């Protein structure tokens, strides 16, 4: 069964409290969720960057989140078509945080990524049309499409991306390689273990008690 963020946080909490967790525990589960998300993103980014530096460009499927049937909307100010991303993508070189964009029913013809700001650079060049293929560029929490993408006939898109862990529902399967789970737990434990050892200043008297 796939692990969820919630399960990982509970595991760390139990380890920190050496067993059952009481209500007066100084560390909250939500705090741990945040730490787990941050640690997972850091480790995945590190792992992918290392493999890319070695010339290995494959993105493992177990870190990818897929969202299908995303609608194509119209930006009436920019006169462009766009889709709202289901979450923030991990920031990687060449926008590799977004792995795949295509029409939902036609995954064999993926849209080609255009670097943001390259519209002007390629303007007037034969390559600007990308051989008639659909293209997209990432801008904040949206992806904008080139003129080869059509919003007619109820067209929707599928977006596969390495989603920022914070945007994954805590109760949904957490996109993390199984071998990375223990590393995430260990690192979060290490972080919070040291804070537990430090005495807490519980009196609010403008004097720091160490």
């Amino acid at each position: 069964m796939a692990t969820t963020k919630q399960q990982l946080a509970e595991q760390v909490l139990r380890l920190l409290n050496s067993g059952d967790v009481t209500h007066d525990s100084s560390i909250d589960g939500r705090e741990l969720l945040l730490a787990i998300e941050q640690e997972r993103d850091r480790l995945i980014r590190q792992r992918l960057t290392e493999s890319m530096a070695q010339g290995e460009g494959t993105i493992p499927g177990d870190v990818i989140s897929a969202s299908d049937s995303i609608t194509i909307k119209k930006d009436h100010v920019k006169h462009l078509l766009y889709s709202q991303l289901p979450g923030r993508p991990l920031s990687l070189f060449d926008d590799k945080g977004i792995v795949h964009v295509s029409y939902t029913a036609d995954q064999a013809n993926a849209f080609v990524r255009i670097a943001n700001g390259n519209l002007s650079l390629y303007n007037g060049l034969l390559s600007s049309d990308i051989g008639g293929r659909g293209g997209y560029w990432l801008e904040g929490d949206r992806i904008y499409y080139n003129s080869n993408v059509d919003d007619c006939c109820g067209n929707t898109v599928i977006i596969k991306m390495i989603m920022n862990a914070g945007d994954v529902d805590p109760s949904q399967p957490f996109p993390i390689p199984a071998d990375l789970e223990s590393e995430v737990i260990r690192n979060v434990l290490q972080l919070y273990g040291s804070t537990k050892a430090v005495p807490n200043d519980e009196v609010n008297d403008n004097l720091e008690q160490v």
Partner: protein
Amino acid sequence: MPKDVKLDEVVKSLLIQHGEQTEHKYMMYLDVAIRGLKELTFDILQQIKSETLVVNTNLTVDLPCDYVNYTRIGVCRPNGRIETLGYDEYLCSQHNVDYCGHETANDFSGEVVVSGGNSRNGELTGGWYGLGGGHRNGYYRIDRDKSRILLSSELSEGSIVLEYVSDGSNANGDMKINALAEEALRAYMHWKTIQRKSGVPLQEKEAARRDWYNEKRLARARVVNFTPDQAWRIARKQVKQSPKF
């Protein structure tokens, strides 16, 4: 005859070869591929295209976007032959503009100083007195600046046939390369994609450059269609029958 290969196919296969696995760099590679295609077309493929172009009202014809140089400009006659036009360096590239801002055709009236042409029973019997040698039924001049061909008035409301050297590109993006030159294009793309990268060792760049020139040489040898039969015919061209004494 080997089939042509789509540029899209070459780009995708090179991306895979480079270990990219995704199409994030597709656009950059495609741009390099188009440059490579042009390079190979100039040097090796020598693609000659023929197009029938409609003459505009201002007696000009727009050049195709992949035009490099012309090999023949003429008019297609009913007998299936192209009647070539004459080059006239005095055709004016400036046009008058009408009240709508559109260029109008230059006025050629009163220019021809020939008398008649005789006919009998509706059939032309020649005799264009006063006409110099080398006369053509229409003249042209290339206006590279405005990417068009200027024509004389004989060609108004018609069309011309343009045979030209193409750079191999195609405005609709559906570009192809001769399968015999595919490997050369791949070598070119590999060299160009690493040429300006500071992280790539100089030896590797040099090896890629040599590989490109080597592949180009191979492609030229493959593309040239010189058969033993052609060699045999050329060698015997001067051998003629004559009476034996």
